[in-house]
Structures are given as C-alpha cells and as structure tokens.
C-alpha cells in the first residue's frame, strides 16, 4: 500500500460507505458498518502518517499541516461513530427517530466525513470550498434529524447563516483567484494551494486584503467566531449528540483549517494586511462573548456549545499572535479541544439519556449516581476549563505566558475571558456532578469507552507528549510563521 492508496482510501471509504449505508436497511448493521467504515478510514489516515506521502496534485495533497487535521478528524470520526452505535438505538426505542431516519443518519454521517476529509486533503481552494459546503449541508440535515420544532428551527438557522457564510467564502475564493490569475495564468493552476503559496508574494496585496475579509467572515461563520456564531449553539443543542460531538470536535476544525490556509497565504505576502490583528480581535471577542454567554445557560448541550465558541476564540487568538510557541499552542489546543469537547458530548449524551432531559437544573449528583460517567464528565470539564494535567492547560499556559510577554493588554483580556468561562463552567459542573442525585434515572446505554479513551489521550498528552508529535507540531508551527 502506498501513500496514494491511503489517500484514496481516506476519501473513498466514507464515500462508498455513504452509498452503502443509504441502501442498507436495519439500523444495527448500519450502525456497526458505520463504525467499521470510520475505523478503516482512520486506519488509512494513520497510514498516511507512516507511508510516503503522494506528491501534491491539482486537487489533493498531504502535507504537514493537514495531516494533523486529517488524523484527528478520522480518529474522532471513528470514536463518535462508535459512541453513536451504542447510543442511537435508545433514541429509536424512545421514539425520537424512525428507522428510516436512522438509515438517512448513517448515510449522512459518512457523507459528512467524506466532505470533511475532502476539505482537509484538497489542494485547491475551489475544491475545498465545495467540500466544506458539502459537509455543512449534510450536518444541516443531521441537525434537523429529530424533526421537532426546536430541531427544525436550529437546522434552519444553521442553514441560512451557513449559506450566507458559504457565499461570502466563495466570493473570497473568487477574489483569491483573481489575485492569482495575473501571476499564475488562467485556469486551474491559479486555484492550487501549492502554487498559490509559492507565488503569493507577487499577488496584488489589496486584492488579497479584500479576499481575506470575505474569507474571514465566511469561514469564520463556520468556525463559530462571534458575532457569526449564532447557528452554533442551537445546532449543537438540538441535533443528535454524536453529531454535536462531531460538530464541535471536527467541523469547526475544518473551517479553522481553511482559515489557517488563507492566513498562510496572507502571511506570505508582505505588503498585504497582517491577518494576525484581525484574528486576535475576533478571537478575543469570541472568547469573552462566549464566556459571558455561559452564565445563563439552562441547556447542557448549549452550554458546551458556547464553550466551543470560547475555545475557537482561544485558538484563533493563538494563531493570530503567531510565533513558534503560540502556533504550537494553537495547534495543541485545537487537538485537545477536539478530543475533550467530543468526550464531553459523549458524556452529555449519556447524561441526557439517563435523565431524559437536557435541562441543567434537572441534572444533579452524577458522581453519586453514576460514578464512572460522573467523574469522567468532571475530568472532561476540568480539562476543557484548562485545569492540568490535561493538554488544554499546556496550551493555555503557552498562550498566556507568551502573549503576556509580548502584548500585555491583550493577554489581560485573554485571561479575563478564560476566568469568566472557568467560573461559568465550574458553576454548572458543581451542580451537575455533585449534590444529591435526582430520582427517576433511566438505564444508561451509551458506551463510556470513547469518553475515557479521549480523556486518557488528553491527560497523557498533557503529561507527556510523544516526541514525534512534538516535532511534527513544531514543523507546522514554524510553517504557520
């Protein structure tokens, strides 16, 4: 097996899986087929790590930057599928979904994975745009899966805002092409990443500036940066929980990846406006805003959705600051956030099934009634709140210390936001996890293995990062400038 095969497999497996799942009746088989497909995709992606990388083509490429994303993406895709397989049956039993819905759900799951993998592997700004649109549209359909008022409304909101975001991102993409076209000539070469990056210094900076604004707003909507975030909390709260995990853990990253790519492009052109300050401003705004929004949440999934906005803010801030340490921290934070936040949603899925509600006020004393789940949730929330020895702490440590030495005022805002978020999350946590448990629990169906697997990774990386991962991150951090 060569790298090219692995690359093809990463894309073909989910695509094929989607078709197969759309045809297969019976949710049990499809659930496990979904897991199997996701696992094989992950295996193929992991193969990309060790195998020789195929050369970059007009459409696809594998480089240091996107391999971080693709491995993470397929891994969380796999664990989420695993969780989903143990979880979704109960949703059928209590009548929230129909078998037909489930068939659709599994097919869409692979479709979404295909979209995201394609977006990450694409070497072409046009293809990337198409792939992200595909991923967005499929998740819209997943969010509306339960067909309740709330779910449909959330899906609609997501759809409308997402569509506008897509449109703006497309305009930005067109502008990048227009900027590249005089240099690289007409046609496909002007849309290929590897060409663009190489030729970026000769592009018209003014054109790039305008393009970046549109891309920032367009893909920023997808990342969930405030004030473009409105779709995010509702989409997370009303969709099936495995999808919330995937949304927070993966889709946001994919959009972030797109943003990073364009940031690279901007940074390569010296006369263009520096993307850093814009990203810092949006990052801080998202962080502080989301932190404040955490306080009045009554719905557990919406709570953690806002926390995702907050963390996206931190990551964007870190990349905006730039420099080897901050970029390293941004990458690390992104990986840690994906793992932790999806772990949280795995736990939350179980919690909502046990308690039969998503209302925070009705969830109490989890460490008492369900110690393994409860303490898992406690660990996950502490990790997302930036407590050591999780990897999140390491990245926050790096971001805060380096930024304070360089931009004290900004670091103070950062710290303020972090503290606000910390206070809100912990307030909720002490209500959910401690106290006398509420009565009338239903049995737990969802698997806890993905939760603890993610937690183990997060804490292990916090304690000791494998050397391979370090050098890999350092390369990418250097690449990001």
């Amino acid at each position, binding site marked *: 097996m060569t790298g090219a095969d692995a690359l093809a497999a990463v894309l073909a497996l989910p695509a094929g899986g989607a078709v197969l799942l759309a045809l297969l009746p019976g949710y049990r088989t499809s659930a496990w087929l979904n897991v199997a497909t996701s696992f094989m995709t992950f295996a193929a992606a992991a193969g990309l790590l060790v195998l020789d990388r195929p050369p970059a083509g007009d459409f696809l490429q594998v480089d240091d930057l996107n391999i971080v994303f693709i491995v993470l993406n397929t891994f969380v895709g796999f664990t989420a599928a695993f969780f989903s397989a143990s979880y979704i049956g109960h949703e059928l039993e209590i009548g929230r979904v129909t078998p037909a819905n489930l068939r659709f759900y599994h097919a869409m799951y692979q479709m979404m994975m295909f979209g995201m993998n394609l977006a990450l592997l694409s070497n072409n700004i046009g293809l990337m745009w198409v792939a992200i649109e595909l991923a967005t549209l499929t998740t819209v359909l997943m969010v509306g899966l339960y067909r309740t008022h709330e779910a449909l409304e959330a899906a*609609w909101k997501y759809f*409308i*805002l997402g569509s506008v*975001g897509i449109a*703006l991102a497309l305009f930005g993409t067109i502008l990048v092409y227009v900027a590249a076209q005089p240099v690289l000539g007409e046609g496909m070469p002007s849309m290929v990443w590897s060409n663009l990056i190489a030729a970026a210094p000769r592009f018209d900076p003014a054109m790039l*500036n*305008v393009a970046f*604004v549109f891309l*920032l*707003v367009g893909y920023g*909507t997808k990342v969930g940066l405030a*004030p473009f975030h*409105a*779709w995010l909390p509702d989409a997370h709260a009303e969709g099936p929980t495995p999808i919330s995990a995937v949304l927070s853990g993966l889709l946001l990253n994919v959009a972030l990846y797109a943003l990073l790519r364009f940031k690279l492009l901007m940074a390569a052109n010296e006369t263009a*406006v520096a993307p850093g300050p*814009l990203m810092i401003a949006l990052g801080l705004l998202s962080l502080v*805003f989301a932190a*404040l*929004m955490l*306080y*009045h949440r009554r719905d557990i999934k919406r709570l953690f959705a806002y926390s995702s906005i907050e963390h996206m803010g931190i990551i964007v801030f870190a990349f905006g600051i730039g*420099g080897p*340490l901050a970029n390293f921290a941004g990458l690390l934070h992104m990986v840690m956030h994906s793992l932790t936040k999806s772990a949280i949603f795995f736990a939350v899925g179980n919690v909502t099934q046990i308690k039969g509600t998503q209302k925070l006020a009705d969830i109490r*004393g989890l460490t*008492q009634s369900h110690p393994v789940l409860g303490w898992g949730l406690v660990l996950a929330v*502490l990790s997302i709140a*930036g*407590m*050591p*020895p999780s990897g999140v*702490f*390491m990245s*926050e*440590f*790096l971001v*805060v*210390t*380096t*930024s*304070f*030495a*360089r931009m004290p005022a900004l*670091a*103070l805002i950062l*710290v303020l936001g972090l*503290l*606000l978020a*910390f*206070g809100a999350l*912990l307030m909720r946590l*002490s*209500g959910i996890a*401690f*106290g*006398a448990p509420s009565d009338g629990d239903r049995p737990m169906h969802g698997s806890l293995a993905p939760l603890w697997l993610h937690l183990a990774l997060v804490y292990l990386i916090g*304690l*000791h*990062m494998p*050397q391979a991962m*370090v050098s890999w991150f350092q390369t990418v951090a250097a690449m990001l400038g």
Partner: protein
Amino acid sequence: MIAAAAGIALCLLALSVAATAMRGLTAASAAVYAASAVFCLALALVGIWTLATQADASAMTVPVGLPWLGAHLRLDALSAVFLVILGTGGVSASVFAIGYGRHEHEPHRVLPFFPGFLAAMTLVLLADDAFTFLVSWEVMSLLSWALVLTHHRDEATRTAGYLYLVMAGFGTMVLLLAFGLMAGAEGGYDFAAIRAVTRSPGLAALVLALMMVGAGSKAGLMPLHVWLPVAHPAAPSHVSALMSGVMTKVALYGFVRVAFDLVGPVPWWMSVPMIVIGAVTAVMGILFANVDGDGKRVLAYSTIENIGVIFAAFGLSLAFRANGMGPLAALALTAGLVHAVNHMLFKSLLFMVAGAVLNATGRRDLDGLGGLIHRMPKTAFLALVGATAIAALPPLNGFVSEWLLFQAVLQSPQLPQPGLQFLVPAAGALLALAAALAAACFVRFYGVIFLGRPRSDVARNAADSDGWSLAAMGGLALLCVLAGIVPGFLIDLVAPAVELAVGARVPMQAGNSWFTVVPVAEVRSSYSGFLVMTFIAISGGASAWLVHRLASRRLRRAPAWDCGFPNADPVTQYGGGSFAQPIRRVMAPVLAARETVTIPPPGDMAAARHRARTEDLAWTRIYLPLVTAVGFVARRFNALQFLTIRRYLGLVFGSLILLLTGLTIWN
C-alpha cells in the same frame, strides 16, 4: 536526595491510583492513610537531612511536561524547609485520619485524592521550571477541591468548593502572567533561565505584585481570602488541617521562591505593600475569627491572620535585603519561616481537635457545644496546648516566632527610607494587636467548646477520640512544646534556606546556654523558652506543693455560686456570640457589625430577640459587586441568544461592512 523526594511523590501518586482501585474495601482507609503517613515521614526526613547536612542543591529532569523542556526538579534548602513542613503536617494528618477516617461515610471521595494532594504539594516544592510548578500548583488546587467536596450533598459545601476553585483558577491565571513576564516571549521557563535574566526594578516589582496576587490568593491574603474561611472548614478535618497548615505554606513557598530567588533584586518600595497587606490581613483575619460562630471557620480565619504575619515578615525581610542589610533580612525571614513551621504545628493540631469534636458531637457551631473538657479530657488537654501556642503565649512555640518578628521590627530604625521607618513600627503595632486578639479569639474558642456546661445533648454525651487521633494530636502538641522551649534548633534548621534566600543568616543558636535564642546580639535581646518553662513549672509546682502541704488541701463540691442566682439552663452561659460582643462593638466599623433588638410590644409574651451580624467588607464591597457586574453583563449579552435569524444576519452583515470600511480606510 532529589531522586528520593521525587520517588516519594511518585509513590504517593501511585497510592492515589491504588486507592481508586480499592474502592469498597473496608481496610482501604487505614491502609492508605498508613502508607501516606510513612511516605510523609520519609519526606520530612529528606527535608531534615538536606537541611542538617547543608547538602548542595540536587536536581533532576524527568521527561514529562513541556516536551522540549521536561519536568525539572530540584531540592535545595528552601524547598527542604517547606518539605519538612509538608512532611510533618502530612504525617500527623495521615495518622489522625487512620482513626478519624473510620467515621467517613463516603471514604471513596477522600482516599483517592488525599495522597495525590500530598504528592502535588511535594511537586510544587520540587519544581524547577515554570510549567512543572504551575501544573503541580493547579493539581494541588484541584485535588484539594475534590477533597473539599467530600460532603458534597451539603449545598454550602458545593458553594464553598465552587468559590474555592474559581479563586484558585484566578490565582493560577495571575501566576501564569507572572511567570510569563519572567520567562519572556521566548519561553525560558526553566528556573535557571529565569534566574539568569536581569530585570529592571519596575519589571521585578510587577512580577512581585502579580505573585502577591497569585500566591496570595492561595495563601489567603486580604482581600483575596474570601474562599478560605468557607473552603477549609468544608473539607474533612484532616484535610482542613493539611489545607490550613500546609497548603497555605506551599503557597507562601511559591512567593518566597520567586521573590527571594528567581526574580532578582527587588526595589525596596515593593516591601511597603507587602508589609501593609500582611499586617492588615493579620488584624482583619483575627477579628473575623473573633466574631465567627463556627469552630472550624474560626480556625480558618485565624489561618488568615497567621499568613498575614508571615507575609509581613517576608515583606520586612525584603525591605532589609533591598537595603543590603543581610543579617537583618535573615532575621525577618527566619521569623517568617519559623512562624510558618509553628503555624503548621498548631493549626493542624487545632483543626484535628475541631475534627475530633465534630466526630464526637457532629457539630461545628460553637453555640451547640460546651463542657467537653469533662467528656473528652485528653482532647481537651491537647487542645489547650494548641490554643496556648496559637495565642502566642510563652513558653510555647507561637510566641517564639512572634518574638523574632518583633525583634526584626525593632531593627527598622536602621532602614534608610523614612517611609519604612514610619511604616514598620506601625505595622508592628498592628501585629501586636493581632497577637493580642488571637489570645482573645482562642479563649473564646476553647472556652466555649470545652469549658462551661454542655449546650446540647450531643455535647453532653460526647466521647473522647480514638487512639490514632490522639496520637497525632499528641505528637503535634509535643512538637509545639518542644519548638517553644528549644526554638534554637528550629532557627538553625531553617538557616540554610535563609542563607540561600538573603545571603546571610542569624547567628548559630546551637551553642547558647540554656537553649537561649539570641537573634542579633545578646546585648540587644534574648529569650529562653526553656528557662521560662522551667521557672513557671518550678514556681507553679512549688507553690502548689507548698500550699497543699502547709495550708489547706480540703475541697468541697457545691453548686456554682454565680452571685447567688445561678441558672440551670446552659443557654445562660456566655456563648460564641455573647463572648464576641465586646470586640464586635469595639471593632464595629471594620466588621460592619450591626445589632438589632426586637422587643415585642407590652403585653405580648413573645421573647425579645437580639440579632448581631457582621459582614466581610471585602466580600460585600468587592466580590458581590463584581459578581453582580458579571451577572448584569452576562444577562445583557444573554439577549443575543434570542435574536431572530434576520438580526443574526444583520450582525454578520454589519461586521462585514465594518471590516470592509476599515480596509478601505487602511488602504
């Protein structure tokens, strides 16, 4: 030696894991605590050995933590002093818990965290780079938070835990800033690298100010103390003992490490806020202790007082050091460090006493107790030792460190800055006030709990503590006495750390006759706890013997006299609230004390009511407004969750236009 210390920390961590696995085993509790005790003993011995042999600092690097840095660990004299504090406090708390822990309803909420908490504190002391330090620091907070939440069904405990963790998070953030400032943008997180950088005085002062906030919030400096009196008491008592006796010291260690070792020369004026905050903290802390009605909270407030005292000593030391007066700086620092050791001894003892009382009666409120000296005579005796020690009365140990501190204060005329010359005696007056108030506080604490008549049935039927608990308390009481009568050993023990921090030390005390302490020169001052003890024992014993021998030894029991109208109802005794009345009245402005008397109209047979309330001004004037402000802003922002899609689109559109306009102008 560092390998030994790190190894012990690792063992403690492993013990935590093992404790998690032992859930449900009946013997788990005793086994875990016994093992903790052994490990802590080893830690204390490592510390003592390092100090006694004046061994060179030893260091090691473990490949965990920041990947390109690793976890640097180092054991030097300064760490060793605090290691001794940690070890001693840990041994006693663990031994106490062997007995005390039997009464825990949910041991699985304590056992997995207890050894880990000790390990985290050890690692804070051993850390030699910013990352390891902060990770250990935060893990320490985290595990103690879990321990605070042991009795989580209680709403008040949950609130306490929340407040605690938020304040801990705040402190860590500020520490992050401080270390960020020291490490610089390039990220020289290694302590050696931090030490090597020369900083401008302003920068050093800023670092120190941040450290004061960061470490001070953990130690309980005003006005960052608000969590302490709620969190420390909420934990099981042996944990309270560790938190108050040891964890606050670990926080102070963080400060000392930075202020005296890492940050380099500090301008003299930074000592001003330290001394002021320390002295004010001392007075305010003990004032609150004097009026609070909950036994464990009284102890927690008293911790705040003692931290203030220690901190003021550190400030004084810094002032001397900034003026190049090494020996005097050494005196002040010695006073601070010795007081830290002493405070660990008696505060742990008293928290254990409170725990024993809690176990025996199930109550913490002063007004539900009383007369326990009859039911728990052994505990009562040990408690008396603790109370006398903490009240800074000779010949016990609390006095020694206060005395040393006053000696340092008396050297203030040598300071060249007039500001300090004025400030230090004034601060000395505040510290004296705090010491005197501490005596009042512990008369109240001891008198209401142990003396008089029982105020409730549980107090009437209490039984004395078990052997393990008594052994732990007895050991601490013995150490209190020993440290009081032969303080020279303690002073010599901390001397290497002092030398490391300020480059000078107080004279060697070991050779002095009659165990006398001579901090500067004999002509200036000296004190021999041993002789005072001997004299008191001889004169008291001799007079008692003579009186019994030569005069009368007859004794008759009779009802209490009470000026002729004794009341059988124990409620008529002075309780916690009434005992506090004089001080509450006198200090009404700072305590925001209010008394309301409701007298029913004539003819109404209802009882008149008297209510006295005090409030923490830091809480009502700083924290509550802050909480309100955050709540207000959050509520305002919360409206953004409920907009229509059109408005959300409007937001996107508006931002886009804003960015484009900005770009047009920029171009």
